[in-house]
């Protein structure tokens, strides 16, 4: 661990040295940045993960369109090295934004105007250096909770996740250094909706079914993806995903399983090819008679279905192509909460135990 840490500042310094070399030669300096877009994302059938291709773009300083981004890249790199890595401190994305945000003297131009800009630069630095954001000591907002029969050692504190009341354990942004102890569960259930997490926690679902519950708000953060991956790899627990039956739920599942386009470079550390989708599905709509709960698709939904269903990692997946087809045929989508019409605890007492027992999963 320690060896690796001392390497990171050096990698960043190398980026600067490289630019300096070009300047010494009197050249217009450039930085080579791998392209992070669908056009440069490859789905690897063998490993079942998304990978970044080898297309790159050169970012020049003396170019009206590139100059500011070039400056931002070097500035953020120097902040990360000097303020965080050299002093062994961590900072949030928001904090890095404020460290970089200032007005360039004699102009009315801010070095960065918006956190989106600095976030993008940090992602760029990840692909340029091959270091993850976590390795660069940058964290994101905490956005998830966990309950269940396990103990987590977080910065030396032992936390029993079965004794944390309604809120559960608040998952930190960086989960690489957590340690797991006394894991006594058969599987992990991950859900996109905190409301469902609260329902299941109140029903003590994890106690009755001997499992771990994890939630985020909407998109799965890296910290949670890394946590799930480690629970799958290190504790050999099956991971099940619970989402709305719509194209966005499908995409959330695919991000956990295969990785995302924006973070294709970090797929190796974040994806869990063995993950399974438990629900809810369009078939459940028929099986549990939820037709009245269907929400009509709008043009945006339809366009997104068309787009997602053509992604390489969905293209040959029969289960999911069938789901997309059903969505279009029924012209609708269904939320997890729709199950509440069958009774408030229907989901924890009947739906989930049945589906998991019968192994009714989508791959």
């Amino acid at each position, binding site marked *: 661990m320690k060896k690796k840490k001392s390497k990171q500042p050096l990698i960043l310094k190398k980026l600067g040295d490289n630019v300096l070399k070009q300047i*010494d030669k009197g050249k217009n*300096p450039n930085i080579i940045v791998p392209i992070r877009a669908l056009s440069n994302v490859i789905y690897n059938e063998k490993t079942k993960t998304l990978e970044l291709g080898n297309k790159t773009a050169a970012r020049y300083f003396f170019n009206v369109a590139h100059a500011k981004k070039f400056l931002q890249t070097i500035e953020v790199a120097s902040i990360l090295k000097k303020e965080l890595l050299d002093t062994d401190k961590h900072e949030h994305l928001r904090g890095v934004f404020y460290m970089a945000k200032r007005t*360039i003297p004699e102009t009315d131009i801010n070095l960065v105007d918006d956190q989106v800009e600095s976030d993008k630069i940090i992602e760029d630095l990840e692909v340029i250096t091959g270091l993850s954001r976590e390795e660069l000591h940058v964290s994101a907002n905490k956005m998830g909770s966990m309950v269940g029969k396990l103990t987590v050692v977080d910065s030396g504190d032992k936390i029993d996740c079965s004794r944390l009341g309604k809120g559960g354990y608040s998952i930190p942004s960086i989960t690489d250094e957590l340690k797991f102890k006394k894991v006594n569960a058969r599987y992990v259930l991950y859900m996109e909706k905190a409301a469902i997490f609260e329902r299941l926690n109140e029903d003590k679902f994890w106690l009755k079914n001997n499992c771990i519950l994890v939630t985020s708000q909407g998109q799965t953060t890296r910290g949670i993806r890394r946590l799930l991956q480690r629970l799958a790899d290190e504790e050999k627990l099956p991971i099940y995903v619970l989402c709305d039956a719509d194209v966005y739920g499908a995409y959330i599942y695919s991000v956990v399983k295969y990785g995302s386009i924006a973070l294709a470079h970090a797929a190796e550390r974040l994806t869990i090819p063995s993950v399974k989708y438990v629900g809810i599905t369009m078939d459940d709509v028929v099986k549990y008679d939820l037709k009245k709960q269907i929400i009509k698709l709008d043009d945006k939904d339809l366009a997104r279905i068309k787009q997602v269903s053509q992604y390489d990692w969905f293209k040959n997946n029969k289960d999911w192509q069938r789901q997309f087809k059903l969505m279009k045929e029924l012209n609708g989508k269904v939320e997890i909460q729709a199950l509440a019409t069958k009774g408030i605890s229907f989901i924890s007492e009947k739906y989930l135990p049945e589906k998991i027992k019968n192994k009714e999963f989508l791959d």
Partner: protein
Amino acid sequence: MVTIAEELAKKQREISISEFFLKNRHLLGFDNPTRALMMVVKEAVDNSLDATTEMKVLPEIKIELKQVTEDRFIVIVEDNGPGIVRQQIPNIFGKLLYGSKFHSLRQNRGQQGIGISAAVLYSQLTTGKSTKIYSRVGPKKAAHYFELQIDTQKNDPNVLKDQEIDWDKDHGTKIEIEIEGRYLKGKQSVDEYIKETAIVNPHATFIYISPEKEKLVYERVTEELPVETKEIKPHPYGIELGHLIRMLQDTRANTISGFLQSDFSRIGQQTAKGICSKADLKAEEKPKKLDGRQIEALFKSLQETKIMAPPGDCLSPIKAELLEKGLKKEINADFYVTSTRPLAVYRGMPFQIEVGISFGGEIEKESQIRLMRFANRVPLLYQQGACAITEAVTDMNWKPYGLQQSGNNLPTGPAIILVHIASVWVPFTNEAKEAIAHYDEIIKEMKLALQECGRKLSIYIHKHIRAAEQRDKINLFEKYIPELASALSNLTNNKRDPIQERLQKILKKELPTLEAENGAIEEDESVQNIKEQEGNKKIKNEKKEKQTTLNTKKIRR
């Protein structure tokens, strides 16, 4: 028993035009004290400019506003025109609808002869004072001084003083009117009216003494007098049936053929013959004897016969070159472009459109452009929203011409757009004469003139403004360099200054490449955009025209 009709008859009587004005002064533009002050100045100055044009002297007009109390002003306007003969003074100033202009088709500032007497009436109404007039027709004649009011019942002048006086002026007219008013600055002020008048009358000198006793002199920039205009007869195209009936009744000609030749412009013997035969009329028929069906046939035949466009010598445009001089002397801008369209016709009336655009310099950058509207060299300061000029400007897409625009609003940017219509009969929407009526022919001509100027403007903007923006961006490198040097020095633990020096050297080397990168492409694109847009509009116009012809056909059936 007295019938209701008889009861009513007792109350029915002729309303004098003066009484009508009393109750409807807003129709003439005297609806609030601020506007009234401007209107009085305007009516007096319009008369002075018309008079000096008639005499072919270079106008020198002195305008003075004296504040008597908070809401009371004396307006003094003095010109070097031909003066007015003694007998006519009371009628011109003391009788509404008296004038030489109403019956003629000729480009003039005033049209109905309401203006100056309305000002006299307004003065009398709000202050009870009489209007004072000085006039002299030549150095050998005596100068006359009048004080008069208007008898509103009879619409007749009421002369209170009529005497000979000593006046140090060879010829000219001076009027002193005391009115209730309010003096404000801004877009609809007396100051603005005088400034705009100076722009479109580059041959005139104005001396203006404001209520704050500030003296402003607007010097003439040309000795060239506007071309003298000729009176013309109506042109057959677009004349209305009712008008034709009246003309047939009023004519002195004894035959239809004679009537057509003498009472219309551009009809000769041959054409008259053709028109008659097409209408199935004998050329020798007496005009007053035509029945309804025959008149209708004549009307139709007039519209369908090919007749030359009306003569252009009835109009006196400012002319592009002089308009540019006028703009340059009153507006401090970086770029000026002007355009005068050829003569066009609406409803048989010849008209001509001129446009001028000033850009950059001291013109305000961040707000909507200023629109200056003129009719026969008179600024139109009110009712901008109701005016055809505004429609022509807002209906264009200004983006390809280099100005910002959101929706169908006035474009935004450091520009002043001036539109002038010269016509023997300007179609105003009402008697306050502040907005042009929406005739398709007029709007089309305006757009063509705006596009002509717009194309030149766009070339200027793309060359100069984009180049300046580009320079700004390149200048930014000088500001970025120290930043990059510091960041690199922090990142690599090298000294900052040598990095900065080297970067500056590279900048010098790269500069030509950086400057060449833009400009050319953008200009090409803008010209392309304009072509596309104007092409589309043409198609749209054609479609519109087709539709209107279809509609008229339907109505005719």
